[in-house]
């Protein structure tokens, strides 16, 4: 099972984080990533640059509306993610609890869809089945 650990932080959390020396953050994150790599569970992980460099595309109106960051009043900012492959949600949570994060930080644990979520009998595949049978019959004729 794949899970995404989504790092989020309140404005307050971001501020608190900025007070930690950069080297410290790099070292702690490095250790955390290494522990997940050595356990063989880490598939990907990235940190995002400051929200001030980002933009939001809002689809509420007919034309998508683009707003450049920072986005003013925000409750939570999305700062980065990991994708891990583990055997249960509990295991994903155990890994999440080990992340080197502090006050104001949230780590959301979400399962990533896998092939098991797309049953082989969905419409698209059935169509293809039908096509294949047709081809086979044509081949025999």
């Amino acid at each position, binding site marked *: 099972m794949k899970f995404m650990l989504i790092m989020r932080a309140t404005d307050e959390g971001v501020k608190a984080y900025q007070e930690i020396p950069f080297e410290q953050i790099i070292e702690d994150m490095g250790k955390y990533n*290494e522990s997940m*790599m*050595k*356990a*063989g*569970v*880490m*598939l990907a992980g990235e940190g995002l640059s400051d929200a001030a460099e980002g933009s939001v595309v809002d689809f509420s109106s007919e034309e998508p509306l683009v707003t450049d960051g920072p986005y003013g009043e925000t409750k939570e900012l999305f700062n980065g993610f990991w994708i891990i*492959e*583990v*055997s*249960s949600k*509990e*295991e994903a*949570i*155990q*890994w999440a609890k080990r992340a080197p994060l502090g006050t104001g930080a949230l780590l959301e644990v979400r399962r990533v869809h896998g*092939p098991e979520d797309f*049953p*082989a*009998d969905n419409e698209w*595949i*059935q169509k*293809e*089945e039908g096509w*294949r049978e047709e081809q086979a019959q044509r081949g025999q004729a």
Partner: protein
Amino acid sequence: MNNSHDEATARSTESHGVERTVAAIWRIESARIIATLTRLTGDFGLAEDLAQEAVIDALRQWPEQGVPRNPASWLTAVAKRKAIDGFRRRERLDQRLAVMGQELEREQESAVDELPWDPDEIDDDVLRLVFISCHPVLAREARVALTLRVVGGLSSEEIGRAFLLPVATVQQRIVRAKKTLAAAQVPFEVPSHGELPKRLGSVLGVLYLIFNEGHTASSGTDWMRPELGQEAARLARGLAALMPKEPEVHGLLALMELTAARFPARVDAKGEPVLLADQDRQRWDQGKISRGRQVLERADALGRGRGAYCLQAAIARCHALAPNIEETDWDQIVVLYEALGRLAPSPVVELNRAAAVAMATGPESALRIIDGIRATGALRRYHLLPATRAELLLRLGREEEARLEFALAASLAGNERERALLQAKAAGS
């Protein structure tokens, strides 16, 4: 040790939830805990017993007391205490006991976040654990069971379920394996430089065996058990992180990623196997393909040439990159199989080379290779030999002969679904 428990967890989790949490923690920590205990007690079998007993204590106590903040420390400390009690009972008051006692005392005073092992030693200890679990003195199935349980942190129940074996059989294999290791006085060590290639070969062989069991279940009704493939990839990924300079470790991981990428397309809606030529390539897992390619590049970048796993990964990469069977780089695949055949001559490799030659140059030359294999008497009980020969005969329009070969292949196939597929072909449908 740490006594401050997460009370919120205790309140919100019922004992069933705690069981799953214990299992999850065990999956993460088992290798390091057992490795640490083996180093301390000097006895791998004892260490494994102690760790299992600590898990039983956790299952009893955590539902009441809550899950400790640092569960690995808790489990290790409980196991150490049990070791000390055991040594005392047997009056083996030696140096090891003194060391463990001191460590326990120190840990009780130390901070909650303290690790129960030496961070500079733990990686090597885990590697030692991998090598002891895959030791050549053990039978292959014993290596598989031990590796999954000790390094992978799977329970005997989970291993039994994955391999369609009674739990008692799995437990027996593990008990016997531990006795064999003790009787042979196998040391807890990473093999020396000269011995390493062979011993690493055994480790990689065990992981590949686990992967293949998930890839094509050798018996039973399910065509695939992807969770075993996933487990093997996880073990390989961990090993690659611990031995980053060994190209074949990366090669094996790349092979697993690139092969597993095809899993979603390998069965149809009815659960019937779909052969490579007929697979819907849009269903291949692009994430796995890109990871597999990256890992293979890492192996090649080490500049030590390609071993058998790297070559097989390179073959899998040719398939992964091809838009369809016709536009596959079959010439390249033939070259890779030739290299593989030189490195590790085997009739199975030869058979695969024949299949590639059939695509690159045509069925006649492929048929000659297969008849060559048959003339040596090799692979007489291997269903894919007649199955491949049958496909070639079909392409040459020799239908009657093809049917006979399909029937032979069906009679040799161990997997029920595969057998049914071959029987259908033998019947000419």
